[in-house]
Every structure is written in structure tokens, then in C-alpha cells.
């Protein structure tokens, strides 16, 4: 009897995505599988490319601002913050103290909202659908506050160059305070329902290991980096606005697995609550806008401004040639850099781990592809 060489378990090449329920958007993963084991994974990106950097060259500084909301749609405030800071630095404009406090508040609220989506999505990826809706229930209250303040729920366009669209509306602070009082109890609920669940722990502990060295060399930032034990947070490392005056911890976990990243984000939500309490207590009165010229023409020059977005280091690299429009604008997108470490994390993983690891990276495809 002759042995048929095709009679072996063959590697299976599968396209995961771009249309797949859990690639968090339109990411295409090219998988090489041996049964349930993953031999190789290659992310193929670019399906959500929206040429946001090129659009910036067509529009003036003020007109581009609403576009910044759109590429990382879960933390639009952070994008606006980065862009507004870059333009203001280029112009040499310093926002008023009240404006700075409100911007920090908005950024922290957006961090909670973004982490809530992450939290629920990871639950969804591991099969626990319920926690997703609980997270959205709480996120809804933040979105309601955002809607009250900015007029939109998702794509706020609340910051302006030199200030804000408007001051906080009446009732905003009370609403925020009641949310902040309730929210830690809700986090404890998620913690008991998902994080401490034995099945969830066995799905996440020891899965998707990323060493601190690898994380640093891939340029991974944000909670993903802090989950690998590197205590690096731009709010501490390169503080901006009122962060030096505020008291908060930078949660770090040494394990470097999905669970570590998950716990870092869970802790960060509580830290944001702490920060927001301080903001509410110390919010100064006063003007929110500084006068900026009607036509924005920064002097020729270039600048790189970075902030800590919920996903990591969000940087704006801006070159001005002295005209009304940016000569070149580049986003240093945290999701893009974090995604690079993905194949490294997936070594020896199972198919089911792939989605858990991807969930723990908390990427937004709009952010990856820009």
C-alpha cells in the first residue's frame, strides 16, 4: 500500500475578517492554523483607511477639527485634545485655566467611556455577552453628559482652538457627580461578574504574553504597555495641563497577559473617577475662551504633541508653512503601534485566544488605518 502524502493534517489558511464578528471593525487576519492551534497570524490593515492626514492638508486648522473626532470614534475628546494642543502650541496660545480643567475632565470621562466599550467587548469576545450591555448602560450616562455639553453623543467637536464650544451646561456637574458616586459600585459588579469568573480567568490568564522588552521595542503604549509591567503614562511622564496638580496612580501589572491588561484598564477607570472627583472639586470659575485671530496662520515650524489617550500615546505631528492650512499632519496612532505586537502575542495561541488577545489590545480600526 502506498502512502498518500496528502493524507496528513494539513495547515489551514483562514481569512479572519474583514467581515468577522470580533475583529473590532474591518481588520483582516490571515491565519495559518494547525487544527485549533495558530501557527502564524498576519494582520492585514487598511480597510478603513480614510486619508485623514491628507484631508488635513486641504482644510484650514479650524475646519479640520471635526474630522479628528472621526478616526478614533471611541475617544473623540482625546483626539480633539491632541490636535487642539498641537495647533495652540504652534500658535503660542495658552488656554484659560477653566478651559484646561474642563478639557481634562472631558478627556477623563472619555477614558471611562472608552474603557467601558473595551470591557464589554472583551466580555463579548470571550462569550459573556451580558457584561457588554451593562457597560453600555453606564457608558450611556457619560454620553448623555457629553450630549448635554457638546450637542452630540459620539463625535463631539467640543474643543475649539483657543477654548471650548461652550461652557458646561447647567446640571452637568450634578449629573457627573451622581454618576461618579454610582460608578465604582458598577465596576465592582463587572468585576464579580466577569473578571473574577473562573472561566474568564482561565481564558485570559497566561494568554497573549508580551514581555516588557518586546512591548517597548514594538512601540506599544498605554494600558497594553502597563499590562506588561512598564509604568509609563504620559500624564506622568510628560504631564500637560493640570495633571501635575492632580493626584492619581498609574496602575501597572507585571504579568503581561490578557488578564493583566484587563485589570490595568479596570483600575484605570477607577483612577479616572478619582481624577474627576478632584476636577469637580477644584474647577475654577472664569472665562473659557481666549481670543484667537479669525484667520489662523501659525509661523512656519513644526511640532509634535502627545497625550495619553485611552489607548496609549496619541501624538500629532504638525508642520506649518505659514499658510492657513497645515503643510503636513501626521497622527501617531496608538492602536496602530499596539497592533504590531499582536503576532508576537499570538504565538502558540488557540483560535479562541486570538479574539481575546485582540480584545485586550483595545484597537480601533479607524485609529489603525486613519
Amino acid at each position, binding site marked *: 500500500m502506498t502512502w498518500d502524502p496528502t493524507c496528513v493534517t494539513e495547515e489551514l489558511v483562514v481569512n479572519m475578517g474583514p467581515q468577522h464578528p470580533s475583529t473590532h471593525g474591518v481588520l483582516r487576519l490571515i491565519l495559518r492554523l494547525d487544527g485549533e492551534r495558530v501557527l502564524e497570524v498576519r494582520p492585514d490593515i487598511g480597510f478603513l483607511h480614510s486619508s485623514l492626514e491628507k484631508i488635513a492638508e486641504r482644510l484650514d486648522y479650524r475646519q479640520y477639527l471635526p474630522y479628528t473626532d472621526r478616526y478614533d470614534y471611541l475617544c473623540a475628546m482625546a483626539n480633539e485634545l491632541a490636535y487642539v494642543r498641537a495647533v495652540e502650541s504652534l500658535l503660542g496660545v495658552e488656554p484659560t485655566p477653566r478651559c484646561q480643567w474642563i478639557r481634562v475632565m472631558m478627556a477623563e470621562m472619555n477614558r471611562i467611556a472608552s474603557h467601558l466599550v473595551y470591557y464589554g467587548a472583551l466580555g463579548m469576545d470571550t462569550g459573556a455577552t451580558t457584561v457588554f450591555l451593562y457597560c453600555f448602560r453606564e457608558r450611556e450616562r457619560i454620553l448623555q453628559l457629553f*450630549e448635554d455639553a457638546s450637542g452630540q453623543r459620539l463625535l463631539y467637536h467640543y474643543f475649539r482652538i483657543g477654548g471650548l464650544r461652550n*461652557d458646561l*451646561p447647567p446640571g452637568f456637574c*450634578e449629573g457627573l457627580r451622581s454618576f461618579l458616586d454610582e460608578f465604582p459600585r458598577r465596576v465592582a459588579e463587572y468585576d464579580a461578574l466577569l473578571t*473574577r469568573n473562573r472561566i474568564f480567568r482561565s481564558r485570559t490568564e497566561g494568554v497573549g504574553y508580551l514581555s516588557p522588552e518586546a512591548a517597548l521595542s514594538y512601540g506599544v503604549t498605554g494600558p497594553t504597555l502597563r499590562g506588561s509591567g512598564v509604568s509609563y503614562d504620559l500624564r506622568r511622564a510628560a504631564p500637560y495641563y493640570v495633571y501635575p496638580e492632580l493626584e492619581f496612580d498609574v496602575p501597572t501589572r507585571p504579568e503581561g497577559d490578557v488578564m493583566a491588561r484587563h485589570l490595568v484598564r479596570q483600575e484605570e477607570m477607577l483612577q479616572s473617577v478619582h481624577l474627576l472627583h478632584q476636577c469637580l472639586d477644584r*474647577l475654577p470659575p472664569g472665562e473659557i475662551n481666549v481670543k484667537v485671530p479669525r484667520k489662523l496662520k501659525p509661523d512656519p515650524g513644526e511640532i509634535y504633541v502627545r497625550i495619553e489617550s485611552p489607548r496609549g500615546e496619541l501624538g500629532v505631528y504638525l508642520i506649518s508653512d505659514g499658510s492657513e492650512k497645515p503643510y503636513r499632519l501626521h497622527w501617531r496612532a496608538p492602536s496602530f503601534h499596539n497592533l504590531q505586537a499582536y503576532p508576537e502575542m499570538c504565538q502558540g495561541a488557540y483560535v479562541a485566544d486570538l479574539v481575546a488577545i485582540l480584545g485586550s489590545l483595545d484597537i480601533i480600526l479607524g485609529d489603525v488605518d486613519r
Partner: protein
Amino acid sequence: MRKRYGDNLWDLLRILAAGAWSILVGLYITGINLIRPGVCERYPRRDHRPDYQPRPGYRGDFALLSDPERPGGLRCIACLQCQNICPDQCIHITPEGKGKDRHPVQFRIDTGLCQFCWLCVEVCPVAAITMTPDYETATDQPQKLIRDLDTLRERGRNIPEPQRVEPVGCVADGGA
């Protein structure tokens, strides 16, 4: 490193007991939520909050405010500033007249292109254009998304003053 569970019997039993307990806690939480009232609203039916309106300043649909003393009955002076600042170039104005009589004869906003950024409202020197809190603008016909002068005038007829957010902010003590 992957832990190998079940290396010794006592460990295994402990893990099983803790796991069973965590599952029971999870069941308790979902059980509590089963009894709690839901937070969803019966959206199109509106029996939850029948008079719900978004706050002033919500960016819904467009309107042009009226001024009966001006030609065309609109405040708009057709200065084209909104048309120029619009990042999506969705506003098209055909002006007519000179000086004080300048007014639009055609004012077209394609809300299909619009990204509702509110820049046109901000830039308007006479506060003639505004956005209303109408949020049910979805349609299956693209041409229905285009607002022309008559529609905009009709919408603005009942709005006495431009919708602006009151400049009342809260300060450190949490009061308004």
C-alpha cells in the same frame, strides 16, 4: 507561563470550589439585574419620556431664522461665511442684492454630506443659521436629505431666537 491545574488533588478541589463560587456570584448578579427594571427606552413609541427633547445646542437639523423686516424675510445676509467654512462644502448659497438688501435666493444644505460640526452656526455674524434638536432625520431617499431655502425658512419660523447654550457654567462648588 501556563499553570498546569490539577497537579495535586487539593489544589484542584480548591480551584473547583472557587470556580463554582465565582459562577454562583455571577448568577446572583445577573439574577439581580433580571429583576431590576431595564434601562432601554421604547424608542419610537415614546411612552417612557413622551416629551423628551434634546438640550438646546443639540446638532440635529438646520433652520434659518426669520426677520420679517428684511428682504426674503430672513436674517441671513448671504455673506457666504458659512459656505466657506463648511469643511464638507455642503452649503450652497446664491446671493442677491447689494449692501443691506443682500439676501439669499437659493440656500441649499445637503445634510447627506454634512458632518454636523456646528461651524457654520458659530461663524455666522448675524446668528441667522441655527440647528434644531430634531433628531429623526433618517430617510431612504437621498434627495430628501437636501434642505432648500423654503424648508429652512419654514423650520426657522417658530424659533424666536437662535439656539445657543446658556453661558452658565458650574464652578468648583458644584453649583450652577
